[in-house]
């Protein structure tokens, strides 16, 4: 086994492999190059983790999903055909699917996730701080339908271009635009306390 005590140190330094494309690195890994796995982990792991964290709003679950998605990447490596799609597109799709699985399993007993009722004794300033602490955006995101949440996270937090989001979600660019627009409107309504305006149509 390789020494894994400081896993990403090498790739933050002057590793020549850090310049290689994801495609090339995946190929190198499939051929038995351990250093390629380090670069890929440093490059793609944070993307996976960030999306999973925003989709699930739960760190432990996001960590498990990230590990699972990366495991699938390692196993898929020998079958990868370079140049057909971006490795990151494939990985985002796998991550989102795993997140949806987790959310589906959780849904029957989601009582734990309902935000606590606000304390009437808090001053307006305190309440603002409280909302910031709880991450108002996360609270609002968790109320969006899955597809809207995915599109909004990929567009506005991961800052991916619409065609790439379309590739990840397996839909047209127009559908991505529609999902993000509806998602944003819903978020604005949730944050302004106007949930009654929400249309929970998904698609």
């Amino acid at each position, binding site marked *: 086994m390789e020494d*894994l005590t400081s896993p990403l140190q090498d790739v933050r330094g002057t590793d020549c492999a850090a310049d290689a494309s994801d495609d090339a690195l995946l190929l190198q890994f499939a051929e038995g190059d351990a250093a390629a796995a380090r670069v890929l*982990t440093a490059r793609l792991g944070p993307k996976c*983790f960030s999306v999973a964290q925003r989709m699930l709003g739960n760190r432990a679950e996001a960590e498990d999903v990230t590990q699972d998605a990366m495991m699938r990447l390692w196993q898929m490596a020998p079958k990868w055909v370079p140049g057909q799609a971006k490795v990151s597109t494939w990985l985002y799709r796998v991550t989102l699917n795993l997140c949806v699985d987790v959310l589906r399993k959780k849904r029957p007993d989601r009582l734990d996730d309902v935000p606590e009722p606000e304390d009437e004794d808090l001053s307006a300033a305190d309440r603002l701080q409280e909302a910031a602490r709880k991450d108002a*955006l996360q609270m609002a995101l968790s109320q969006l339908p899955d597809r809207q949440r995915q599109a909004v996270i990929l567009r506005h937090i991961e800052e991916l271009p619409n065609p790439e989001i379309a590739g990840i979600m397996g839909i047209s660019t127009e559908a991505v635009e529609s999902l993000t627009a509806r998602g944003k409107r819903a978020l604005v309504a949730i944050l302004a306390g106007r949930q009654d305006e929400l249309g929970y149509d998904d698609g």
Partner: protein
Amino acid sequence: MNWGMMMAEDDMELDQLFAQARSARPDLPDDLAVRILTDAETVRLDRLKPAAPERSVWARILDGIGGWQSMGGLVAASAAGVWIGFAAPDFLPDPATILYPQDTSFVVADLGLDTTFLEDAE
């Protein structure tokens, strides 16, 4: 303040929240990176493991009958069989006379052939 201005303000607030979320994107926790790389290493080493060498047909047949040790006994038994066939001990009946208890001349006569040449030869 009219409805449109309110909406614009809400949009700005949302954009600010997105900007905050972008700047606060989490790093990959070190322990998670270790878990991921351990998985990668396990997959990599599994793949590098040489496949079991292909065994020859003879080696597999030999395995089937119990290896080289049993082969010695098999060879001895076969050799004894060949020898008994070739030079049967006196106390054993000749299997040929049991199965075909005829004289060869009857056989040829049965075929309705001219057997005078046999007599000439004698």
